[in-house]
């Protein structure tokens, strides 16, 4: 009985039962994590692995956008700038300086952080739509510079011939999946900490936040830096995975794509944009694999987004969450839809109250 291993296993099981199995959304997250981890062992199809690698990297990008736009309210229309900064830095360093990709990825992320700080400093005084539209300009300025100096940047073709991080497809898959888990979980933790609370305050009322003694410029700079760090890491990994860093990493289309993922999934949740990427990206790619639909891929994507918005204007994940879970009216904790009383405070839940009054 006193075997430490058995004790640890039982402890883990108890935690799992009391913390994870009580809420349908947590069960879904656990199932998703396990499915991603075992997929290459069960179904090592190179096409599927490739799609999931892209999905994971874009999920990191979308989650980092959500911290900046959803939590802090700095709706960035040029998020591709950080992605592209990470991709180009890592690519140029590993190609021109001959550094191994394991190091250049981190330098790429660091440079993206610096870029994030610079953009953040420029945007400190801007608010609302002005900020969105001004940030749209930065990646385009960067593209203009890249095209004006093709000898250094490769111009329209970009920088190609990079080494990938791992030798095999499965290795690359695990790098992408594990970095996605680390980034998304880290961002989620950060967003639910006191730091995230301050960001909520800044978004809702910046003047009130400042009046409460919060140094808002410092927080805004910090959130720009963190968001850019994560996005730059995604960009650097992306460049080494497809082994080319081209101007498409900076395009307006990518910035818009990120905004669509973020809002489609539900802002200020972190997991919302991740869900959106995991729904929309494989869907559009799968549709594009049909020959007849190949040209209609983007059209179908846009129509799906429009239709879903008409029914779920707050985004996909808040809508689904409201369907499977209810909020306890007394202690504001989440409960499974089927529960008659709150699992924590024992208060009768809304559905029960409604049935009783009838």
């Amino acid at each position, binding site marked *: 009985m006193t075997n430490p291993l058995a004790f640890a296993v039982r402890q883990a099981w108890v935690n799992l039962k009391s913390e994870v199995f009580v809420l349908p959304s947590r069960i879904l997250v656990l199932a998703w994590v396990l499915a991603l981890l075992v997929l290459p062992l069960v179904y090592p199809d190179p096409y599927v692995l490739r799609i999931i690698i892209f999905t994971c990297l874009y999920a990191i990008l979308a989650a980092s956008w959500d911290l900046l736009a959803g939590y802090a309210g700095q*709706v960035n229309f040029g998020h591709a700038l950080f992605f592209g900064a990470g991709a180009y830095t890592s690519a140029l360093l590993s190609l021109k300086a001959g550094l191994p990709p394991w190091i250049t990825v981190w330098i790429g992320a660091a440079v993206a952080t610096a870029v994030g700080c610079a953009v953040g400093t*420029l945007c400190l*005084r*801007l*608010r*609302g*739509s*002005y900020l*969105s*539209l*001004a940030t*749209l*300009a*930065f990646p*385009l*300025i960067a*593209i*203009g*510079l890249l*095209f*004006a100096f093709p000898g250094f940047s490769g111009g329209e073709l970009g920088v190609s011939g990079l080494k990938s991080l791992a030798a095999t497809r499965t290795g690359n898959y695990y790098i992408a999946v594990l970095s996605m888990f680390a980034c998304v979980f880290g961002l989620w933790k950060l967003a639910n900490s006191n730091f995230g609370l301050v960001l909520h305050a800044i978004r809702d009322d910046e*003047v009130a936040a400042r009046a409460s003694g919060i140094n808002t410029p410092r927080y805004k700079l910090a959130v720009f830096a963190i968001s850019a760090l994560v996005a730059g890491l995604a960009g650097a990994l992306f460049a080494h995975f497809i082994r080319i860093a081209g101007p498409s990493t900076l395009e*307006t289309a990518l910035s*818009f794509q990120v*905004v*669509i993922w973020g*809002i*489609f999934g539900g*802002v200020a949740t972190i997991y919302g944009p991740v869900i959106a990427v995991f729904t929309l990206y494989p869907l559009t790619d799968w549709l594009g694999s049909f020959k007849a639909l190949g*040209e*209609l891929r*983007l*059209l179908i*994507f*846009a*129509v799906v*987004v*429009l239709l879903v*918005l*008409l029914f779920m*204007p*707050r985004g996909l994940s808040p809508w689904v969450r409201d369907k499977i879970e209810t909020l306890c009216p007394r202690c504001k904790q989440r409960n499974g839809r089927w529960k008659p009383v709150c699992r924590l405070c024992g208060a009768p839940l809304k559905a029960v109250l409604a049935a009783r009054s009838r």
Partner: protein
Amino acid sequence: MLQDILVTGLVNGGVYALLAVGFSLIFGVARIVNIAHTAFYMLAAYCFYTLLVTFNLPVLFAAVVAVAAVTALSVVCYKLVIEPVREHESAVLIATIALALVFQELMLVAFGGNFLGIPSAVEGVATLLGVNIPYQRLLILVVAAAMLIGTWLVLYRTRLGLAIRATANDLEVASLMGMNVGRVAMATVAISVALASIAGVVVAPVFVVDPLMWLAPLVTMLAIVVLGGLGSLKGSLIGALIIGYVEAITVFALPAGAFLKGAVALSIMVAVLLIRPDGLFGVAFEEER
């Protein structure tokens, strides 16, 4: 070269002004950041192309029908897609992005990705200040000026214009005074898209028509509107001329200028924002403190 810069800047500035004033109007009245604005400009160019080249209709008739059709389409889109999600600002934003993508892809399916050329409405070249200006560019300038004056007359000399300005100034009070704010917003959408589609029709013979032709003017237009101050018509007009001239100077005076014209224009916008965060003629909106 100086004359080239003067004329090109003025013509481009006129086109940009048509686009920017319409965008600014919608933003002022309905607070919609309409990313699909230049997509309507593209649609008008395609519509004009079809009527003129495929159906061989007379130029003026084709132009009027194209503008009317696109304007009607915009009102339908507003009713079907934007109106139901009006209270969710972010949903409106991506709805307009998605609309633009839908139009782009539809045109890609219908016409392919080829560059299409449209014959000029008026042939010939005028010589002004020693520069040769094709009549078509002169036409752009005249139409742009006429339309801007027309917009000014509508806004400042009619009851509808009064309602639009009142709604832009304070939506709630306008509603309390008995204005049908929803209908005012719809009328604004129609006016603004009409301006964009007129720009599309007059520009089509000079530029080429292709499904991606909405992206470049979109960015320039946003830069102009931010530079001049969101919601300010005077700002949009002056911003359009500034950006038009800056682009012309970059293209004619710098090496590799064609690549850098967007970057320089956008840098100017960023520089202005750093000094004046509300743009040159920014309107302070009540609810934004």
